[in-house]
């Protein structure tokens, strides 16, 4: 384990050293000597090095095609899914213990938008177990939900579907309360009217009984069914926030979550949010698959580069014997791989774009190559190439000239104890 940690630190150290200004300057100085050598080597092993380019090119094509497919599918699904209908931009329910006095805590909302407290209570009624929503007389939710006729004191509005199912008519009485022991305790409310249309689809108000906030709070206080603050006050248990300017919703959600960490939050999800959730999350299934594409491409590059190194041990050993520095041999190997890798990357980008365009003609989902997917493909291709080529080049860099010329096994750890053990077999 310690060897592994030491090895990791050494590798990190070598990366940092390689990127130091002094080493970069020396590398640039050595390029005129080693670039023609690398080109000559690639020409002599063209088929093998083409495989490096093909691995990366194929990786990029698959990456672009899959990312276009994931994105297209997500957008397609987003387009077909109905938004959650809510009378507010953010709703926090069951604010939890310590939420009393939340009006002060919510003062900041006035900068970002408007808020209001309301009550949501799951209770027993003569119509079965129902949600009762208590809204203030001046609540913006009445208007936002399109409820024209508001209930007065001791009155209730019932959903149209429920009224039809239970044959309710204005003036009928609905009992609202709790079951205590074997009996029912509560109050009686007269049906003021029914509501339907857009409100019936509302996730919050749709199937609930609508009452005046003071009625709900006083009934709950009377029944002992409400959270009570230190001063004996009963406060609503839900908050609705409407943002002043569109586009600040994420911040709004974050703040509400900060104030009421135990609350359940609802908000109408944007189509872009749904698409992001499907493909954009760091560890989303789509991204894991896309990353695996480059892991596979990197393994291909690694195999080809390792094979090339192992078949040229003597030649590379001779270079070292003649006086090439370890870093220069390392540079030579990276250069050799990078020529075809660059070609393969360009081929992959063009091929991927053409493939996506071709498939888009017959596809039911909209497919397109985005700038960000091209940028990610480039970054991942470069990183996977460097990681894949780094190990073979490092093996060669660490080997002594005689180790290479005699065709001895190479070990990542250059200490002789590693060769003495030899259990891993080396390269």
């Amino acid at each position, binding site marked *: 384990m310690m060897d592994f940690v030491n090895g990791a630190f050494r590798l990190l150290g070598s990366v940092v050293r390689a990127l130091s200004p002094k080493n970069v300057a020396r590398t640039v100085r050595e390029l005129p*000597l080693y670039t023609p*050598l690398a080109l000559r080597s690639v020409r002599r092993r063209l088929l093998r090095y083409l495989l490096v380019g093909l691995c990366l090119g194929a990786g990029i094509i698959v990456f672009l095609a899959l990312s276009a497919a994931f994105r297209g599918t997500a957008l397609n699904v987003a387009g077909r899914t109905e938004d959650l209908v809510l009378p507010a931009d953010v709703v926090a329910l069951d604010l939890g213990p310590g939420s009393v006095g939340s009006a002060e805590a919510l003062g900041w909302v006035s900068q970002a938008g408007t808020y209001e407290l309301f009550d949501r209570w799951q209770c027993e009624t003569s119509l079965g177990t129902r949600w009762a929503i208590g809204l203030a007389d001046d609540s913006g939710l009445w208007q936002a939900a399109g409820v024209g006729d508001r209930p007065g004191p001791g009155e209730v509005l019932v959903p149209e579907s429920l009224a039809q199912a239970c044959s309710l008519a204005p003036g009928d009485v609905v009992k609202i309360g709790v079951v205590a022991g074997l009996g029912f305790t509560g109050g009686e409310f007269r049906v003021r009217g029914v509501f339907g249309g857009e409100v019936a689809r509302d996730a919050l108000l749709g199937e609930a009984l609508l009452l005046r906030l003071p009625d709900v709070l006083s009934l709950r206080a009377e029944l002992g069914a409400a959270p009570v603050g230190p001063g004996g006050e009963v406060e609503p248990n839900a908050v609705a926030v409407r943002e002043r300017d569109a586009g600040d919703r994420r911040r709004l959600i974050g703040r509400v979550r900060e104030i009421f960490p135990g609350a359940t939050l609802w908000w109408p999800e944007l189509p872009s949010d749904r698409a992001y959730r499907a493909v954009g999350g760091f560890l989303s299934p789509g991204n894991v698959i896309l990353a695996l594409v480059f892991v596979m491409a990197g393994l291909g590059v690694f195999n080809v580069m390792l094979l090339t190194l192992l078949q040229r041990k*003597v*030649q590379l050993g*001779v270079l070292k*014997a003649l*006086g*090439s*520095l370890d870093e220069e041999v390392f540079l030579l190997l990276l250069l050799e791989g990078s020529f075809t890798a660059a070609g393969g990357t360009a081929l992959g980008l063009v091929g991927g774009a053409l493939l996506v365009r071709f498939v888009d003609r017959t596809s039911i989902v909209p497919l397109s190559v985005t700038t960000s997917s091209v940028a990610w493909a480039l970054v991942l291709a470069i990183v996977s190439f460097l990681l894949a080529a780094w190990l073979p080049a490092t093996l060669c860099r660490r080997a002594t000239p005689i180790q290479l010329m005699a065709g001895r096994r190479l070990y990542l750890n250059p200490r002789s104890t590693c060769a003495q053990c030899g259990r891993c077999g080396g390269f």
Partner: protein
Amino acid sequence: MVETNDRPILRATRLARRFPVGEGVWALKRADLTIARGAFVLVTGPSGCGKTTLLNLLGGLDRPTRGDVEVGGVLFSKLNESGLARLRRREIGFVFQFFNLLADLTAAENVELPMRMVGLRKAEAAKRTTELLEAVGMSHRARHTPFELSGGEQQRVAVARALANQPSIVLADEPTGNLDSKNSAEIMELFKRFNRGTGQTFVIVSHAPGFADYADHVVHMKDGEITGIDHRGGGRG
């Protein structure tokens, strides 16, 4: 201590090399050797006696398990890998049994490469390459790749490459081991000619007894140790 002269260019002190194979094998148990500037030294002995190991250690291609090597007053143990590589570039030329020319390059490019490594400009390197190839009789094959050359021709190019940076020491490991007798003699003559002409030190490993005639000093080895040295004073050629 076995000495060939009192004006040393190369000195090996208590040199030993153990290979970590199984329980460990001592390929070279102990070698004390001092070689003078301009000497022509033949290291000889039966197969497996440690000749090549000694040469690799003298050339800084391998690190000793014990002891040290000093070339022109510089101790190898004081140098890191980069320092050792830089010293090899300028001070030591190598000729190998299997020629080991870089297959991707032409004969001329093979000779030019060490010069470019030390920073010689292309035009100067090309001029010196032409001179060297002429000196080894290979100027007519300058643009040929190693695959298009015979063994003797490849070894001539390898000799030219070893001499490219005018090193103080040329180390040759069985340079005639893969050549017929005619080519072998030609290569040895070539070494001797450069040794006489430039005053460079040559250390040649060979188990062919006939080549002792070329050498000023013959170092005999057996079982990883130097068993004796013959001072011949001038040698053939």
